[in-house]
């Protein structure tokens, strides 16, 4: 995940940097892609600004969608694999600002995300319990959600699978 490429806007010339696989040179004013970890470090140094971040508006839309289908587990909306990580980046950014408006946004962000997580995990638990393992459904989960899904499925199978039915 930390090696996933992220789009950045280059604020200052930087490099060359040998990351072991390629040499990275960033030119001021250009748009480029760098590994997430490097993007985070360079953003802190004001060398780049990560551009493919999530916004509170987008989060609002996701929550709306999830709420509409709250009782239909199979209607899980598709999130990028690193969704929670993107949220984390947004939080860090807001936290960094340290003004009143940002604080208000932060509060709102946490509330929305909590709701999203809550609805989605319920759906995922249902899916795991019903032993639904549709490829397209799994694709809609984030990495963390897939871990939850997989674990619940396996613990149910392992724990009591040999009692029910069989």
């Amino acid at each position: 995940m930390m090696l996933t490429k992220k789009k950045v806007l280059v604020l200052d010339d930087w490099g060359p940097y040998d990351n072991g696989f390629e040499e990275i040179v960033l030119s001021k004013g250009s748009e480029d892609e760098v590994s997430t970890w490097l993007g985070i470090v360079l953003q802190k140094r004001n060398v780049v600004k990560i551009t493919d971040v999530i916004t509170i508006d987008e989060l609002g839309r996701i929550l709306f969608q999830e709420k509409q289908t709250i009782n239909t587990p199979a209607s899980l909306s598709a999130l990028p694999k690193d969704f929670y990580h993107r949220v984390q980046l947004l939080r860090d950014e807001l936290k960094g600002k340290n003004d009143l408006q940002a604080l208000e946004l932060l509060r709102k962000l946490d509330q929305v995300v909590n709701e999203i997580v809550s609805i989605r995990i319920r759906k995922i638990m249902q899916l795991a319990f019903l032993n639904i393992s549709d490829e397209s459904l799994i694709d809609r989960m984030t990495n963390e959600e897939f871990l939850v899904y997989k674990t619940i499925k396996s613990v149910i199978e392992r724990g009591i699978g040999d009692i029910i039915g069989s």
Partner: protein
Amino acid sequence: MLDDLVSNELKRDNEITEISKDTIEKLIQALLRLRRKYSDELHIEELKIYEELAESLLELRLEKVIEGFEPKGFDKDILSLVNVMKKVYIDYVTGKYHTYKGKVLCLSNTKFSLGNTVVEQGDVIILPLNKVLALITTNYITPVEVRE
């Protein structure tokens, strides 16, 4: 690349993924050169990311070995040590070895040095449990088994 290996390991939940020696070798050789060339803050940060991913990869694979999936891939031999550990542990706890308070009676399979002593093949050795495991792996010793 290492992150893809971790994702794949996570996704495939009923087997250990087959990571080839060539795949891992390319990664290792690149990182090895990186370590040799640089020691600045940024490269240390980068290597930390790789270390964390390697740890996740091992954890996911180990958990599968513990659940009973067959070790395979470049790390087959090292993962298999968990199965040796299982055998030694079970045998120890269920009284299959001549033992007393964590010490196990063993025979030496070969000449090797143990502390200041050079042990010959067939010599008798009393060893703490963790050394029993290590020396079984290298085939230096065999615990004396309890039989009717």
